[in-house]
Structure formats: structure tokens, C-alpha cells
């Protein structure tokens, strides 16, 4: 398909284990974002990749969270030593290149279906 894909769709893990979540963005989309949605809440920004620029990690809640992106393709979000409060749906989004800044340059983000993480 042509959309953003994420794997696994569901992940159940034990507290203290590490988990790795994968995102395949839409081909040609240079920007990639990770968000999480806790039960009953809105989406929270985690991290943003744009081309070869240094990622914006300002939303990562702790140093247990990290993410990598291979060029302009696949990204993995890693959570080390998982805690119960990490339980959430983790969503990836990608966006095609826009113009160089300004309100007219915006292109909407396309989201994947998410990975539901449950930490027991």
C-alpha cells in the first residue's frame, strides 16, 4: 500500500524489557514524526526527523526513549526498561517536503495505524 505502515500492531511486554517499534513512511516523504497517545488523551509529540538534519528530540519523555531513522526511510523507536506508564498507542506520521518555511509551506502529516504497547 501507499500509506504509512507500522509494526507490530500490538506489543505486550513485561516491565523492564526493551521494545522496538518500526515505522515505514510514505515513499518520498522527507519528514517523519513519532507521537504517542495515552488512553483517553490527545497525541503527544515525541521526536521529528527531517532529511539529514539533527532530529528534534524535544518531546521524548526520558532518556529511556530513543529513535533512529535510516536516510529518508524506515524509523525505529526504542524504549528501554519499559515502565507501565509507557503503555500507549505509538503513532508514526510522515510528510512530504514543503517550501522553505512560512505558513504557506505546510503539508499535512499522514499517520500510520499505530502500535499499541502494553507494559504489564
Amino acid at each position: 500500500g501507499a500509506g504509512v505502515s507500522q509494526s507490530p500492531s500490538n506489543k505486550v511486554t513485561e516491565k523492564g524489557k526493551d521494545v522496538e517499534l518500526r515505522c515505514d513512511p510514505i515513499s518520498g516523504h522527507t519528514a517523519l514524526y513519532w507521537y504517542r497517545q495515552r488512553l483517553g488523551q490527545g497525541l503527544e509529540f515525541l521526536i521529528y526527523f527531517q532529511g539529514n538534519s539533527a532530529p528534534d528530540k524535544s518531546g521524548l519523555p526520558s532518556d529511556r526513549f530513543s529513535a533512529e531513522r535510516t536516510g529518508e526511510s524506515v524509523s525505529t523507536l526504542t524504549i528501554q526498561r519499559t515502565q507501565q506508564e509507557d503503555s500507549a498507542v505509538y503513532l508514526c506520521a510522515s510528510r512530504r517536503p514543503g517550501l522553505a518555511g512560512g505558513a504557506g509551506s505546510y503539508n499535512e502529516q499522514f499517520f500510520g495505524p499505530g502500535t499499541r504497547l502494553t507494559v504489564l
Partner: protein
Amino acid sequence: DQQVKQNSPSLSVQEGRISILNCDYTNSMFDYFLWYKKYPAEGPTFLISISSIKDKNEDGRFTVFLNKSAKHLSLHIVPSQPGDSAVYFCAASKTTAGNKLTFGGGTRVLVKP
């Protein structure tokens, strides 16, 4: 500190009537606003957006209004259809800061046949 708020967690409306969803924000640096629709077990789907240089944007049954002085935006759906039943999220971004989205908590809309 919630920068984007949707104060109504739910809304119930009769099919054919208008649905009005509201969203307030606090950060005056936001210059682009979006509405996303989300069905259970799916990712959010982009619905409509508006730049801060405009006060209205219309796309079919969906219209978004922006009142910058009040830091308020609203989404109007008319006429509402049963397939519109979903959770709607308001989101805001700064286009000069990577366009990362700040989301509201969502409003669950139920359209009754």
C-alpha cells in the same frame, strides 16, 4: 501546560444537523491549524486545515473558522452524517519549527440516524 484544548469531550448530534467542534489555544506562535478525524484502531486522518493568515477555510461539508484574537478555532460539519461519528482532534503547529503538531484532547462525535 496544555497549549491546545478541546473543552467538550463528546458531542451528540442528529443526522442532517450541524456539528460544531471547538478548540482553544494559548501559544500565539502557532501559525497553522488542522483537524484530524480518528476511528478506533486507526491512525488519525487529515480532514481540513487553515493558515493563520485566513479566518475561514471550506471543503465540502467541512468548514474551519479561525479567530486569532480569541485564539479559538472551530470546525463545522453540515450536514452531519452517521459516518462522521469518530473522535476529532484539533492540532496546531509552528511552520518554522518543523511543523510538529500539538494536539488537543479530542472530541468524540456521535451522529444519530
